[in-house]
């Protein structure tokens, strides 16, 4: 086999000493906090997506419903939680959410994990209310319970609905078709860009040799970040152009045409009736 010529002497030098923790020169993992955080966020986003897909694949009450009726029903219960002024009604909605989660075989820990950030955020935002009189305390608890119920229902919908079902369901509802398609494509390509972002972070991590080396040049870090932003902008623009071209080449003229999908079954009507009933009760109370 032919070989490359002009190999410099330094490249021919072999190291004679293996790596050892006993005489290591560098300390620290060389991963800057923001890079480690980026990687960890990407990994947790991917894990969350996989969790959702796994949950959505289980046989359960919500999973067995038509996606359109599932979305419409949960949305009406969410609206009920948003407008009710009655603590008992709100408590009932939270109880209903727990029953739905149980019947849909959603692990409580997964649901709680999804709800906790919104719960904590709301608690922090309205913390001053708790220092007011008794009414303030009650109002604070009520707001937290309302946010918790709405977040839990949204999480429940996400956990029991595959991405494809979500978009299929939205298409059957009175949502503009082009909006749904744009949303689907955004969701689809965001994961490609997410994968690319992860690889970019890994590529940098694989070339980080010492923390000290990087600290010498903060501007290098900033340039890396700026170059990645520019790369993703360029890639997304290129991709958008390619996707548009691919759609046009297959006959797309601005109007998205899709299959109608499955019709509603008896259980969907029962579910919709129950969900709308909760909504009307919330309006009444």
């Amino acid at each position, binding site marked *: *086999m*032919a*070989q*490359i*010529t*002009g*190999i*410099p002497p*330094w*490249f*021919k*030098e*072999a*190291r*004679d*000493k*293996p*790596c*050892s*923790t006993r005489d*290591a*020169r*560098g*300390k*620290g*993992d*060389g991963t800057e906090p923001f890079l480690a955080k980026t990687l960890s966020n990407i*990994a947790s986003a*991917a*894990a969350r997506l*996989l*969790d959702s897909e*796994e949950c959505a694949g289980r046989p359960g009450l919500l999973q067995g419903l038509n996606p359109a009726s599932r979305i419409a029903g949960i949305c009406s219960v969410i609206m009920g939680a948003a407008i009710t002024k009655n603590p008992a009604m709100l408590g009932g909605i939270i109880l209903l959410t727990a029953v739905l989660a149980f019947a849909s075989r959603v692990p409580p820990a997964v649901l709680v994990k999804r709800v906790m950030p919104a719960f904590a955020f709301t608690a922090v935002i309205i913390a001053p209310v708790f220092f007011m009189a008794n009414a303030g305390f009650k109002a604070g608890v009520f707001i937290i319970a309302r946010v918790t119920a709405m977040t839990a229902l949204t999480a429940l919908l996400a956990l029991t609905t595959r991405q494809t079902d979500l978009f299929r369901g939205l298409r059957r509802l009175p949502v503009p078709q082009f909006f749904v398609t744009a949303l689907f494509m955004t969701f689809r390509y965001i994961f490609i860009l997410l994968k*690319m972002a992860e*690889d*970019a972070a*890994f*590529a*940098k*991590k*694989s*070339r*980080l*040799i*010492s923390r000290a*080396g*990087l600290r010498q040049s903060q501007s290098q870090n900033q*340039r*890396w970040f700026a*170059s*990645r932003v*520019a*790369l993703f902008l*360029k*890639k997304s623009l290129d991709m958008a152009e390619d996707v548009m071209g691919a759609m046009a080449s297959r006959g797309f003229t601005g109007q998205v045409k899709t299959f109608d999908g499955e019709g509603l079954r008896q259980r969907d009507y029962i579910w919709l009736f129950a969900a709308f009933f909760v909504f009307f009760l919330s309006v009444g109370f």
Partner: protein
Amino acid sequence: MAGQVYKLEGVGYSYGTYSALKNISFTVNAGESLAILGANGSGKSSLLKILDGLQFASVGRVEFFGERITEETLKHGLLRCFRERVGFVFPEPDVQLFCPTVFEEVAFGPLQLDIPAAEARKRVADLLEMLGISALKERAPHTLSSGEKKKVAIASVLAVNPDVLLLDEPTNGLDPRTQVWLFELLGSLKALKKTVIMATHDLSLVQDFADRAIVLDESHTAAADGSCAAILRDKDLLLRANIIHEHTHRHGDVIHIHSHGPFATHDEHE
């Protein structure tokens, strides 16, 4: 540097509930050229990332020259030595190239190693000359062609003179001339006794270059580990692992059944 470079024992890796690798065990000796073969999604890239200490095995043990590679050991002192010795070429060069010019890109590694600026400049110039890309040194990486980007990505990794080179799908998207260039480069690295581990499904590259191959099947386990010649002769194994496929077509009254890939022959008649 002689000896056993990597030792993997019962390595598994999962993304949430999805297993990307299951019970992988093998060793790699210094100077060896190893191909990791497998269909898309079989876990080749995850395995390379584990070998580069970018991801860590969910179960099992990974050793590099006898030192266990974990998040903790890299944090506590091994990292610099490990990164000096192991280079990773990603399949998509764009993710790897982040400096404003090719020259700075290739200099990134040596500067991390605290090599004096003058020496680093010489290294970069030598390397660009060796790889035949000196003319690109002032260009911005994003303005290069795919083949040129790949050359710069490889140069940026070779600049720290790694003993072990990990390549993920190295021939992906390369034109024939750049492929030949890559084959020649790998031949030179082999002659210099560098350890090269590549994940690929390009069997022509494996045949020409690798000493040994490990086949990952679609259940994410190692289906075979042996000499390249033996692995490439095992048509059933390659078919089972979805690395080649069989194709039937007709010439007049003769029906040909043959596998697709560089080892396809038209002598299997029915």
